[in-house]
């Protein structure tokens, strides 16, 4: 192998993972000594693998962890999982970046508590929650940050909930678009959409009920759980569709 002839990416990956036989390894090492681009690629692969290996596998921090810790953990995990899914699908970097920005706010899902009652402002909040994220009058269409946004439930704000729903919806849309653009079999695509229909139905029922009872921790939990399940299905589809 000459220094100006870059190895096949698959073989480079094998080298980085220590899968090449010793006979080929020597050739690769010689090439890497003279090729900064390939050295960088190998380091990138190794760094990625190490990073992935160190990542938690699930979005389920222990119940005893405080909300702030859970929020931080959620940010890192959601970022990594969406990044991995998008990388599998080889979507443009811009799309990945957009999704990652969206996903960072998703961690507030974990802040939702199971206890607490509805405050007097619930009724006026109901209409805003009822509309779909991003729609006219919907939770994504209202101003954020005002004191009036605070729900009387253990400090969980409507702004948090609103941002979270919006982020979930956009992240799901981007992953779905990426999946559509990828080389996914018709069967996989059909299965994904079938699953999404089931989740969307549940989501719609929960959102309608939440509009009637905006202070219900159970309903907020079910809404956010449905969003998370939707993203999870899309991420799994991305992983399963990758060619290796």
């Amino acid at each position: 192998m000459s220094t100006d002839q870059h190895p096949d990416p698959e073989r480079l990956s094998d080298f980085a993972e220590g899968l090449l036989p010793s006979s080929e390894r020597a050739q690769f090492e010689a090439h890497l000594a003279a090729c900064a681009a390939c050295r960088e690629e190998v380091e990138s692969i190794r760094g990625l693998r190490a990073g992935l290996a160190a990542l938690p596998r699930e979005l389920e921090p222990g119940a005893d962890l405080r909300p702030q810790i859970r929020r931080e953990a959620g940010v890192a995990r959601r970022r990594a999982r969406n990044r991995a899914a998008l990388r599998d699908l080889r979507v443009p970097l811009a799309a990945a970046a957009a999704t990652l920005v969206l996903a960072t706010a998703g961690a507030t899902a974990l802040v939702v508590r199971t206890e607490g009652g509805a405050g007097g402002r619930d009724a006026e909040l109901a209409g805003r929650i009822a509309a779909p994220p991003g729609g006219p009058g919907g939770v994504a269409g209202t101003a954020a940050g005002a004191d009036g946004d605070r729900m009387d439930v253990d400090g969980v704000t409507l702004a948090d909930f609103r941002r979270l729903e919006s982020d979930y919806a956009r992240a799901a849309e981007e992953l779905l678009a990426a999946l559509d653009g990828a080389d996914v079999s018709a069967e996989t695509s059909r299965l994904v959409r079938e699953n999404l229909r089931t989740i969307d139905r549940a989501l719609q029922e929960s959102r309608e009920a939440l509009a009637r009872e905006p202070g219900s921790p159970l309903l907020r939990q079910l809404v956010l759980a449905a969003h998370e399940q939707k993203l999870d299905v899309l991420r799994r589809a991305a992983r399963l569709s990758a060619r290796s």
Partner: protein
Amino acid sequence: MSRPESDLVPRLATPRMRRAAAFPGGPCAIAARAAATLVAAARATATLGVTAAFAAILASAPSAHAQQAVERRAQLDADGYFRIWNPAGSVRVSTWDRDTVWLRGTLDAGARRGFYFGSAGPAGKMGVQTGAPEARADFEVVLPRNATVWIKTTTGSIEVEGVGGGVDAYSVTGEVRVNGDPRTLFVESMAGAVRVVGVPGTLRAKTGGGAIVFRGSSPDVTLATVSGELVLEGGAVRRGILESVSGAVRFSGGLERGGSLSIQTHDGAVDLALPRDVDADFVVTTLDGKLTQRLVRESPGSVSGPRGREQQFTAGAGGAEVRVRTFSGAIVVRPIEGVAGGG
């Protein structure tokens, strides 16, 4: 060319025989030696093991006449990592007590062009890398007992037995079956069912429409599905999470002292059966489902309010935390007999 008797072990037809042979000091050692001897004696004509195993593989292939048999072996560390990628076709993995990975399989013409296999030291991989998704291959792989294996198929089934390291198994429509006690077990299938029997250190199983059935125990279990049924039966869990959208959830097992169990579903029915002597605090909530509690005699009754119908009660001395939530799925909490509740 003569072959050591131990080399014949993977040629034995059934996982049970291989497992027995791999434990020379175990209770099945006599049977294992007898089986190996039988194979060695029969090899001169046509070994029964080879015949049976190849017959099974050929029978599962859609066009046997186009198949080509393949056999490979290579070194893999006892706790090595091995990746298997087979887009179309089945994968069966079993283990032995040798630092060798051994493969036997069949490939059709399309799969032959993309077939690869390699292993040395801490890692190895094999599979079919081809642009033709219909290229079919069926693999039977024997790995060192403590190896970690990563397997992915699109349509084919995955069967893993006896792997002691980690198992990652992914399929789009294929069924995944795992028997044994891997340290970690991660399984995903979009449409196929997942069936696990054993005592994995950590279990994460997810499906879209396929059922997930886990018979055994594990300190850390998460089962999630969209519309498949979730079934957990067996010993105690320390931390259990079962989630579905529309799939029914059945839990029948123990909960370790101080452990936690969370069940959440939108409209799937929940049947939660725990030992009568379990020590746990319960919060059971449903917005619109029927709630039936038969585990403790003095039920506090349901409290209705903005959060739906909710029951909070304690069984035994309490301590473990049990939460069940549904939107409209019916919930039954009831006792089972014969399973220890405390850890």
